[in-house]
Structure formats: structure tokens, C-alpha cells
């Protein structure tokens, strides 16, 4: 650990997703078809911290995939992710397994939190299936640091079990491991009926397994706010489809590419629009729509206003791919 100045905070410029360029410092085979990749700054300096259960979005080969962080998020100097090779996936995991070696540079987002532990839970019941163990490992690290009560059930296919050592170590051997799905579900049903009031349930794994676990919890009275799940693939930020905008006042036509907002494009072209939050809540950047169909992604317009389609919040909302939106400017 270096005595570097600890100003690791990334400077903020509101609303936009900040990307980091990191170096691959280690690659290990965690299990069959699962690779663990360690990333760090080239100079080893501090990285932005992250909440347990956070994920990174990795940009590679034209793909953007999200992977849960398995390392410690407190003042980190490295990020570690475990990647499952998905044969019929879109190719991001294939690139990470075949094309990446130590020393390579990768572009990743700053970590995003979408599966955080509930601080006030009396107990954390952690259920993992296959590669779903990754955010659970992150939860277990935090639980160890802060002395939280946990109970773990981990089901996997025999040769595809990643992080078994981590799980055993972080639970002092108490984690229950299953290679047979039926045994797992039988035990799960018993466990779900014997938790003290105040327990929270967290489940991560393949979609079908999550559905089965949640259904079992619902059947024995677990209310929605006690049930937390993370489905992989669903949390990647949507950069939106490209579209065009025509400004009726000047008859200019501008392209709004994927990954950039209408507000940004207007500003880049010398057109200033009142704005404040740049996140779709404050209402400042409202524009009148004369033609075309907006795709609303804001929290400001009412349901009626959205349905009328005569206004758009330029900082977050868009239009359908390939169409032209006409605004009064």
C-alpha cells in the first residue's frame, strides 16, 4: 500500500457516467468457464470506493456488460470481477475470456450500486446460484467488516463453483453448499420459515433460479421490501437509440447519437437551453414538441403531459430510433 495522497475521489460533473481506463493486473481461473480479472490504475493509486453489491460496466469489442465486484470497496486500489463465459451471449464475455491478457487496458464505468445490503436488517439471508455468488461475496466482506449476522445458501454445478474458498472463509465454514437443485429448494423452504422478524433476503443467480427462490419466499409471507434480487444483464445503463432533431425556428437538423443527450447536442451546437439538474427531475430544460414522438425518461412531466407528447425534457428523454423530433427552438 503506497502512502499516496488519498484524494481518490473522481471529480464530479453531474449526471454523466464517468469512465475509467484501468490496467489488467491479474487473471485467474476461478472455475470451469469462469475467469477472475483484477483491474487497477496504472500507477496503483486509489480508485473510487463502492457500495457492496455494486457492478462495473466493462466496454469491450463494442459491447457493454455489467459484472459484480467481488473485492473490498473501502478505499480500494483494485477492482476484481469474475466473468462467466456465456456461449450464446453477445460476445462481451467471449472477448474477456479470449482476448484479454495481463497488461491490457480496459475502459470501465465507475461502479454503480444497485444491490446494496440493508443496513438495518437484523439478519441477512444470502442465496446464490452459480455466478450469482459474486455480489454475495461482496456482501459477505462488508458483513465481516461490520459484524453483521448472515446465513448463506449457495447452489452450483460441481465444476462451476467460483469463490468457494472466499465463501467458506467469510462464513467460518457455516455456508451451506448444494450441487443438487432439489436438495437446495427443500432446505430453502425450511430456512425461509425460520428467520427472525427483521431479516432480509438477497438472491442472485440465473433468472429461473431467482424466480423459484422468490416464489418460495412469497409463499411463506415475505413482503416485497424484504426481498432483494439482482438479475444479471438487466442493469446496464441504456445509452438510447440514435435519432434526429429539427429545430423549427431555424430549420436546422441535428443528429443525436446513442450515448449523448439531446441537451448535450444542442449545447455542443451553440444553442443554450435553461437547465439545472440534468437528470430529469427539475423541469428547467423543457422543450415544446411540434412533431415526432418523444420517448420520455424523465421524472418531471405528468402522465397526461407524457401521453400528450407536446413536451420533452431535453436532458434525459429521446425519440424512437431513426425518427426525427421537431422542437420549437
Amino acid at each position, binding site marked *: 500500500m503506497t502512502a499516496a495522497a*488519498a484524494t481518490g475521489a473522481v471529480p464530479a460533473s453531474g449526471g454523466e457516467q464517468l469512465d475509467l481506463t484501468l490496467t489488467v493486473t491479474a487473471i485467474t481461473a476461478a472455475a470451469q468457464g469462469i475467469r477472475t480479472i483484477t483491474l487497477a490504475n496504472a500507477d496503483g493509486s486509489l480508485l473510487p470506493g*463502492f457500495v457492496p453489491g455494486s457492478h462495473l460496466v466493462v466496454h469491450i469489442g463494442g459491447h457493454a456488460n455489467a459484472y459484480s465486484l467481488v473485492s473490498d470497496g473501502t478505499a480500494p486500489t483494485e477492482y476484481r470481477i469474475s466473468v462467466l463465459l456465456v456461449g450464446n451471449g453477445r460476445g462481451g464475455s467471449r472477448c474477456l475470456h479470449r482476448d484479454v491478457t495481463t497488461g491490457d487496458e480496459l475502459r470501465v464505468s465507475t461502479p454503480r450500486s444497485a444491490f446494496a445490503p440493508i443496513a*438495518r436488517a437484523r439478519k441477512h439471508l444470502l442465496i446464490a446460484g452459480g455466478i450469482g455468488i459474486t455480489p454475495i461475496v461482496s456482501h459477505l466482506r462488508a458483513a465481516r467488516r461490520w459484524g453483521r449476522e448472515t446465513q448463506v445458501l449457495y447452489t452450483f454445478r460441481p465444476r462451476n463453483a467460483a469463490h468457494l474458498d472466499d465463501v467458506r472463509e467469510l462464513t467460518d465454514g457455516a455456508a451451506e453448499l448444494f450441487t443438487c437443485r432439489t436438495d437446495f429448494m427443500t432446505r430453502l423452504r425450511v430456512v425461509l420459515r425460520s428467520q427472525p422478524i*427483521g431479516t432480509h433476503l438477497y438472491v442472485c443467480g440465473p433468472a429461473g433460479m431467482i424466480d423459484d427462490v422468490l416464489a418460495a419466499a412469497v409463499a*411463506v409471507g415475505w413482503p416485497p*421490501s424484504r426481498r432483494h434480487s439482482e438479475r444479471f444483464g438487466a442493469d446496464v445503463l441504456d445509452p438510447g437509440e440514435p435519432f434526429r432533431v429539427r429545430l423549427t425556428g431555424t430549420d436546422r437538423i441535428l443528429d443525436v447519437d446513442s450515448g449523448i443527450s439531446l441537451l448535450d447536442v444542442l449545447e455542443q451546437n451553440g444553442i443554450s437551453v435553461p437547465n439545472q439538474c440534468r*437528470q430529469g*427531475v427539475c423541469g428547467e430544460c423543457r422543450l415544446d414538441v411540434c412533431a415526432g414522438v418523444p420517448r420520455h425518461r424523465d421524472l418531471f412531466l405528468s402522465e397526461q403531459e407524457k401521453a400528450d407528447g407536446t413536451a420533452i425534457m431535453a436532458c434525459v428523454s429521446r425519440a424512437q430510433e431513426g425518427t426525427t423530433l421537431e422542437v420549437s427552438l
Partner: protein
Amino acid sequence: MNTAHATTAVSKSRLVENFPFPFTADRYRYTTNVEPAASTVATAAGHWGGAVVDIDGEYRAELDERAAILAADPARHVVLPHMRPAAWDAMLTLMRALAQAYPDQMQLRSTGPDTWSWRNAILGIEQSFRYGDEASLGMEPLRYIASQVQEDIVLLDQRGDALYIDAGVVTFAADWSFGFDVGMSFLEIHGPVPRIRKEGIIIRAHEFLKRLQPHQPYRRTNWTMTIGRRLDVSTELYPEWGPDRETIRTVDDAEFGRAVHLRVEVQHLIRLADSGALMFLIRTYLLPLDELATVEAWRVRTAEVLAELPDDMAEYKGIGKYRNRAAQWLRDHGPHAAADNDRNADVPADQHGGLPSWGLPHWPPYPPEVDTAGAAYLVVAIGADVTTGRVARDWVAAASSAGPTRLLVLDTLTHDMDRTALTGALDESITGTRILIVGGQGEVMWALSVARAKGAIAAELTAYVVHTRDLLAYCAHCAQTTLCQAAPGDIVDCPGCGRRIEIHAHHSSVRGSFLACAAAGEESA
């Protein structure tokens, strides 16, 4: 080494130069006015806003005042047990922010895994500590960092789709009680604010906050007015400062301009990266009217805003009794006084205030149905009311056919035995249980707060009150909670401190009680 700042002879021009003037138009309404933080705002007199923390000429004076307030009233500093990680996170995050904004005087160095070295040259502090180890720091971490920043600090826990104010050090509250509000949800706390619920402003703000990600801080401003350069105008001390709102009406113009201050809060909203909690930093700035008037653009605009402000908003801000005189004072104290009085808004006579009527619990008009999705049921009936017995029997009958059901009949939670029976029954309950409570308002709210303390959440709780003749009243001055036969607006005697206290229409579901504070006209102890 000790670099003392000369803070007693406050540089007047400095206060004006860095004052965060809050009005962007000639009228003011509540909006979701959040914007990205840490970008400098140029004003008519200077600039502000370059960083999320701000140290100015008042640094030592305000820290000393905070220390005195905490020594007199430790209840201004609370960290609920589950917020321990967030408190450490807040401390380290603030240290980083200070080091980034004031690199010559503040330094944070990593000295090993989880160990750090902190230096604050202004206060002459050198401290080594281990993250998470209170013994190594010598103090609770939130308290430690609050003794080195002028900001009030509030930490919110996010769970069940809501935000809860579960920790903080708040010594400069503007007419609210942090001690009472600890544990409340964001929406509950803002219950008493007029208009914002109807206009959806608070819902939007809530949705926005829940989506905040680490490393992307936001900020907003808030404003009111204070008589005297007084930072601590908390509800707890109302008997000390409340009467000023009346006496200010009778002072001469010169004194009025010196005493009446525009009070601005710059609030920073930060998602903490390690714990995931939300940190609100509240930095308070006070500028007297006679200095505000030296900046022409500010003088004119503030007069407009104060004159045009709707009565309900003025009442809620506590300025109803003097805001019109303030508007007129500003108009009268410019370079061309006569011209101002042709301006837009007329200056009507000041109003007398009344209690706002938001912040009351909503009770169902008839007993709610049993939720048949539960795995087990606990029905709690409190008191001898005939209706209580009937509702409890109906619930037991419905619940028994859905799952194993237990009925607990209690006299009153003022009896130790009954409280013990309730907590015992809750300890024996498993997750999946639904809890149904019936009785008078005071007992039901009390029982609900006990269940919540055990970890029960809204989806697991059902309640029906057979009357609203009583309630639990929390005295803001002595912190005693008493079961009273009274309603919001009534005045009762506090058995703890003897004051006559008025019950406000502001309740905490975590405590099960209503806030009460010294009635107007009550002399301070």
C-alpha cells in the same frame, strides 16, 4: 502549530462576497431545485459553491458554538446502531473533500491497509486512526468530523423504497427538532411543509435522491429569516428565540436592519461510496438586511420575493410577523427609495400566524382486512374499549383460516408487564408474520413504534384506532414522552419539566409520538 484566524472582527465584505444569494427570480416558490455540485456560481457581489465543504472566517467561532451546544444537549448528536458504517464513511468522505478543497491546510494520507493519518493545520490536529475502530480515533467518527466542519451533517439510510434520517450532528437547525425527527422518513419529515405534496415536488425530490450514485454530488439551497445572528434556532430552544419574532415588530429601523437576517442553507446531497448511505451537508449563512442592502440587485429582488410570498409559505417559514416590514425596509434603504415603491407587488400588512395542519397520521375509517399472504399472525388488542374487543375477534377469526394466529390482550403500555409481553411476542415471531394492532390512538402508535424497533416494516403492520382522544406527546425541551388525553393544537403541562407545551401537528411513526414545545407566551426557564 496553531494558525488562529481572527474571526471576532468578521470581515463584512467577506460575508457579502461569498454569500450564496438564493433568489433567481422576483418571486419564490418551492421547486425541485437540485443541480450538480462543486461548480462555482458568480453572484452580484462575488462567488460561492466551488466545493462541497466551505470554511470561511467564521470557522473557529461556529465550531466553538457547536461544541457548546453539544455539551449542553447531547441529543443533537445521534448515530443509530446500524449507521455505524455510514458514520465512518461520512468522516472519511469529508476528510477527502476538505483535503481536496484546502490542500495546504488539510491532508489525508493512507498509511497501510485500513489505516490513515489526518492533518488539520487550522485547528492544529494530527491524528492517526484505523477505519472502523473507534478506540483508535478516540471519539465517535461523526462527532469527530463534525467538530472540524461548519456544516450540519445528516445521514439517511435507504431501505424499502424510502429514506430514513438515522444519524447526524445537527446543532444549527432552523426551526425543527433533529432529536425528535431522528428515525423518521424523508416524506414524513416534510409532511408539514405547505404545497409541496400536492405539487409532487417532494415525491420528485425523493425519487431523485434514491437514484443518486456515488462520486456525483448534487446541491440545492433553502432560505428563511432569523432575528439576530443566531445559528441555533432549533425547536428545543424555542422559548429563547421565539419571542423575538414578536418583539422585532417594535424596534426602530436602524435596529431592524441590523437584527433581521436573511438565512440561507446550502445543502449538499452525496451518496457515500462505501456504506451506500446518503449524506446531507447543511451549511448555514446569515446576512443582516443592512448588509444585504449594500448589493443593489439583492436588495431589490429580496424585497420583491418577501412582498409576494404567499401567506402559507411565510407562516411555515416563521416570518409571517415581520416579512412585510422587511420588504418595506429594503425598499426604503436603497439609493433611490421612492422609485422602488412603484414596483410590482404591493406590501400588505403583516399577518398573525396559526398552526399549519399537515403532518397528522392517516387512520383507516374502518378496520382493514387481514392480509392472507402471511405465514403467521399476531393480533394485539389494547384497552377495554368494546370496539377494540370486537375488531380483535374479527381479525382473529379471519387470520386463523390463513395461518397460525396468536392473540395478545393488553391493558395499557404504560404498564411494564404489558410492554414486556409485547416485546416477548415480537421476539418469538418469524419473518412472514403479519402484526395487527387495535386500540386508542396513543396506545396503537406506541405499539407500532415498538414493533418497528423490532424490525417490522409497513407491509407487515396493520392498525386500527377506536378513538383519537389521546396521544403520546414528546416535549422538545426535556425529551420526556407522556401519554396525554389531548389533540394537536392543545396545550398541556409537561410532567418532566413543568412547562406548558403546545402539541404540534407533526408526528414521528418511529417514536409513536407528537412533537410538543413551549406554548407562545411561555417564559423561558
